[in-house]
């Protein structure tokens, strides 16, 4: 897997080996190229019976159910479910705000770990994996492939992703919704510093395109608690104007704004059917991924 054996800072083999026990399932039928472990919207040749249908000329006579013909004197074709692989598209936010981290780990580093682990998991189970870095727009993009060498390319891309510039997540997501072929698993890893109502549109767009969307909403604990004591001058990491504030004075209103945002976002993701995970980056990412994988196993979708 690691042809050049170069160590990656975001890869932890022990964590990956433990995560290998948890399969990555899609919540919706996927459209893959080859046979896999995910349900497909089409009939196929799995062992799982799907339905009978009337024979029409041109059908493969091998699939005619002779026993049914014997009982009913009619010709029925016996159909089985198809299992396919999935195309997992990782969307990594590389805007300037992702560089923030108060506890030694920045959001981009945390995001790399999640993306790398998911990519490894998907490839291990034969799924195609792709990566799109978004900031002002789609900065870098790697289409989904399922050969192991592709994983290395993706890791290179992850390593090279530098957080900079402002967030224009909404147009980027609209663009990806259009460019990624239908019925893919799209994993968005971002701090989502966009108004929830603006996100609603792109989430609806992704759902319309029958994508299974999972979101890792990364937040720093300091962003959640806002536990400053002295007066601070806050420099915008995305190049906006700086703000001088007395934390004692502004903390209440900050918390109010944050609470309103989180509440609004929760409402939007619920209504759009997103698989939403709010993550404080001081948490262990392994636990976050286990929760994510287990949750998807429970919600494994029908066809």
């Amino acid at each position, binding site marked *: 897997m690691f042809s050049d054996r170069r160590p990656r800072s975001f890869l932890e083999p022990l964590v990956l080996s433990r995560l290998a026990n948890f399969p990555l399932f899609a919540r919706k039928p996927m459209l893959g190229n080859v046979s896999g472990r995910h349900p497909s919207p089409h009939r196929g040749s799995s062992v799982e019976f799907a339905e009978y249908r009337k024979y029409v000329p041109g059908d493969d006579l091998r699939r005619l159910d002779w026993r049914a013909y014997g009982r009913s004197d009619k010709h029925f074709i016996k159909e089985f479910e198809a299992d396919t692989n999935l195309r997992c598209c990782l969307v990594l936010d590389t805007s300037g705000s992702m560089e923030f981290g108060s506890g030694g780990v920045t959001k981009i580093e945390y995001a790399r770990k999640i993306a790398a682990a998911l990519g490894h998991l998907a490839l291990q189970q034969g799924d195609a994996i792709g990566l799109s870095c978004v900031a002002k727009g789609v900065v870098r993009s790697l289409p989904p492939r399922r050969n192991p060498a592709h994983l290395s390319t993706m890791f290179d891309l992850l390593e090279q992703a530098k957080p900079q510039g402002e967030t224009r997540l909404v147009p980027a997501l609209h663009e990806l919704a259009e460019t990624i072929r239908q019925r893919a698993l799209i994993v968005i890893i971002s701090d989502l510093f966009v108004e929830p109502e603006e996100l609603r549109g792109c989430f609806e767009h992704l759902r319309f395109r029958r994508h299974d969307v999972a979101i890792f909403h990364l937040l720093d604990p300091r962003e959640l608690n806002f536990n400053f004591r002295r007066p601070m001058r806050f*420099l915008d*990491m995305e190049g906006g104007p700086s703000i001088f504030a007395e934390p004692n*004075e502004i903390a*209440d209103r900050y918390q109010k704004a944050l609470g309103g945002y989180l509440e609004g976002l929760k409402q939007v993701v619920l209504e759009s059917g997103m698989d939403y*995970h*709010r993550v*404080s980056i001081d948490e262990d990412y392994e636990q976050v991924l286990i929760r994510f994988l287990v949750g998807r196993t429970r919600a494994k979708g029908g066809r």
Partner: protein
Amino acid sequence: MSFLQPFLLAALPLIALPIVIHLINQRRYQTVRWAAMMFLLAANKMSRGYARLRQYLIMAARMLAIAGLIFAISRPLTGGWLGRAGGSRPETTILLMDRSPSMQESGRGTGESKLETGRKQLAATLKTLGSARWVLIESNTNKPRELESIDALLNSPGAEPASAASDIPGMLMAAHDYIKANKSGRTEIWICSDIRENDWNADGGRWQTLRDAFLEFPQGVRLHLLAYPKPAPGNRSVRVTEVRRQKTGDGAELLVSLSVGREAGGETKESVPVQFEIDGARSEVAVELNGPRADLKDYRIPLGKARERGWGRVSIPADANLADNDYWFTFSPPSPRHALIVAEDPQAAPALQLAASIAPDPALQCSADVIAPDGLATVEWEKVALLMWQAPLPEGESAKAVRAFMDRGGQAIFFPPKTPTKAEFLRASWTEWVHGTAEAAVESWRGDQDLLANTQSGTALPVGQLQVRNACGLSGEFTPLAVLKGNAPLLARVATTTGGAYFCATTPSPGDSSLATNGVVFYVLVQRALAAGAAVLGSTRQLVAGETSGENPARWKRLAGMEQAVSSDYPIHGGVYQSGERLLAVNRPAAEDGAPALADRRVAGLFKGLDFSRVDDSAGSSGSLIQEVWRLFLAAMMVAMMAEAGLCMPKPARPSRTAS
């Protein structure tokens, strides 16, 4: 509000410390790169209402806490001591206690007199204020006496009630002399008085001198007046105006005339029982009081034949002021009224002799001798009641003899010589005759007191009818009793320690004036002076408290009166005393009865330009004049600190947001 440690108020700018710290804190900000700017922007757009108010409240609470601490350690005082009573501790505090009888009035519903209340209030107040040295100026002697502590004021005999009037300007002058002699540092003078006109003598010329004198002190002198101006309405007083012993067919009787007065406010008709006590025998008569004053004329009290002399007491029931309910008197056969006439003008001498030797009452013996100025050596001074001197003013041995006569209470009237010399007596001297004043009329005269006072019925003497043809000028310090047109004195009085000498600017000779021809005024004048001089010579004598008039108090023995009084203070306490063979009755001055209080504006005018404050109190008041209230400020500070702590307390921690 005032402070015991006002210099600590200099720390008041420290109140701004929280603001300064806040501003410094603002400047010492940290810079941080921040991702979640959208929330900060949203927070900035929100109303800052409560958060900003909370910040202001916290700041105000901190400032209040500091202010409370500073005020508390500055030891604030509350009370009526008008502003600047407090301050840094004075080096010397001088107390002027008005001990006059009017200060013994008690308030309604209390038995405590103004003097007692004033003493307690001053002791409590000054104990709080503190001082390095306490000095009490006694009202009768006007001598300063140092007190060990302010508590000694409560027991000091120098602050006990007395029957004598107070001389507030004199006491202030004594305070001034004390400050000057001792070179006191910062000094405070506290006057406790009921500001009666007779004690303050607001019209006197000494006040201007006092104001100027106090202003000269570079260290500054603060004057405080604790005033008890409220009179006791309906307070009654009794005073004997005349006592005569006369023989009757079967013995003798005493004729006592008295007057009963009452303070303004008691206008209803009432009957006042007046009790007489002579040698333990008591009798009572009711006096109808229908106005401010009622007189009882010649009330007869029978006496034994052998009772030639003695003493008695008149009293009325207890009321608001116990000090004016008793009056002591003595009686004895009238002493002979002998006048000595020293005259150089043979025309004037007969008139003088005639006026002095005709007795106004058949029971009186009046006589007059005429001698030349050089015949003084043979005079029996102890028998002389009045000296009439119409010659150049005495000098040398003559002056000494006349002065000794006056010091023992003798009266003297000086008339101008034919040729005035430069001789001075009692710092007064004749200047020169002004002839041909063409029967100058008298412009004004003092009808309220002294030799030209109105008669007992209130009728004025016909002084205005006098004609003065020649008048001699008078120089020196004197009080004019009658003034001619052109402001030249006709009759003047030069004060001495035991009374005074009179200077008449003209002679009774017909060429000089109509004193002899229109003799009523002259006769009254001479007889009054003669009576005053004879009063000293008799075996009994009526004295005004505080004036010894030639008597030697060291020989006095108390027969009746205030028992607590120490012997050295007998002259200022009402009562009857025996001095050798003589009986002396000491009573409060007439002016003490019903004397009005000075108007506030007049009091303020007396201290104009000086560092003066005044507070009015009432007898029996229990509220402290001054009180330390630092506890209040300390409590305010604690409340402020608790409020600050409450406002700064962080809100309960919200449940931590974790991945959902």
